[in-house]
């Protein structure tokens, strides 16, 4: 086992037993990459807690942790902003015009995931557009 895998052993073990799918652990240029899909937001938070404990404030820059909550088309997702409305945009990017807003705690439907950062969603009132995935929690 490499020094990096040894350092993050607790995290790799937790990811392996978390029920994650498509889990990949690899090393590129002295950075350990862990990619995969986890069953829910709580699992994702738990893995990030372990990461922060092993490497406080993520200072070393020797790990790329990209675990996202598995959610297919049709999944309902809750708007989990701190308190504000979530912008729904015409395209995937903050340079795109806002077509509508979803309220804090509103439930929307996931249509597709063009990438891990932007999801295409539909509100109950029928508006379709792209929202920032960080603020959406699949239910």
């Amino acid at each position: 086992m490499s020094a990096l895998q040894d350092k993050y052993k607790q995290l790799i073990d937790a990811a392996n037993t978390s029920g994650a799918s498509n889990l990949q652990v690899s090393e590129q240029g002295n950075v350990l990459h862990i990619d995969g899909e986890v069953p829910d937001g709580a699992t994702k938070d738990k893995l990030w807690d372990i990461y922060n404990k092993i490497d406080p404030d993520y200072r070393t820059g020797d790990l790329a942790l990209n675990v996202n909550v598995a959610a297919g088309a049709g999944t309902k997702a809750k708007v989990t902003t701190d308190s504000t409305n979530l912008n729904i945009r015409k395209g995937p990017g903050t340079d795109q015009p806002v077509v509508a807003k979803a309220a804090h705690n509103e439930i929307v439907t996931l249509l597709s995931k063009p990438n891990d950062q932007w999801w295409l969603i539909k509100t109950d009132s029928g508006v379709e557009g792209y929202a920032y995935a960080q603020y959406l929690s699949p239910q």
Partner: protein
Amino acid sequence: MKISKILLAAFITSAVSFIGCKPKDSTVQKNITEKFAATPECAGATATVNDGVATLTGEVKDDMCKSTTETTAKDVKGVKSVVNNLTVTPPAAPAAATASPENAMSQGVTDATKDFPTVTATVNNGEITLTGSIKRSDLTKLMQSLNTLHPSKINNQLTIK
């Protein structure tokens, strides 16, 4: 003799109180910085004060910000004049010309840092470098967001408050 002593004392007292009336450059600079922090939509300006002359440097998003930032500095007590050396960010290149993976990552980084105006992120060869400051409670959120962009590395040089 006695009178001259009294006069001397009076002179010293008035001299001290005169100096006391004039705000110190460091205090004026601090007050300007606080005023700037209250207008995050025009972030990017830094002020240095010397003998009451405030020099503004940095890059702001448009001409409007350049002039409002100058007005903000002028209104601070103790500022005699303002030297406005602010530059304005050039407009973004059209989307069609920016389709490389590096630019896609830069756009993603812009999106990820939008809600954290005190964070500056730069992309170089697939590596993201973070400078500026952030609240500890927001750090994980930002890191999660940036990791979805598949960077080769994240250099976290943020000051954590």
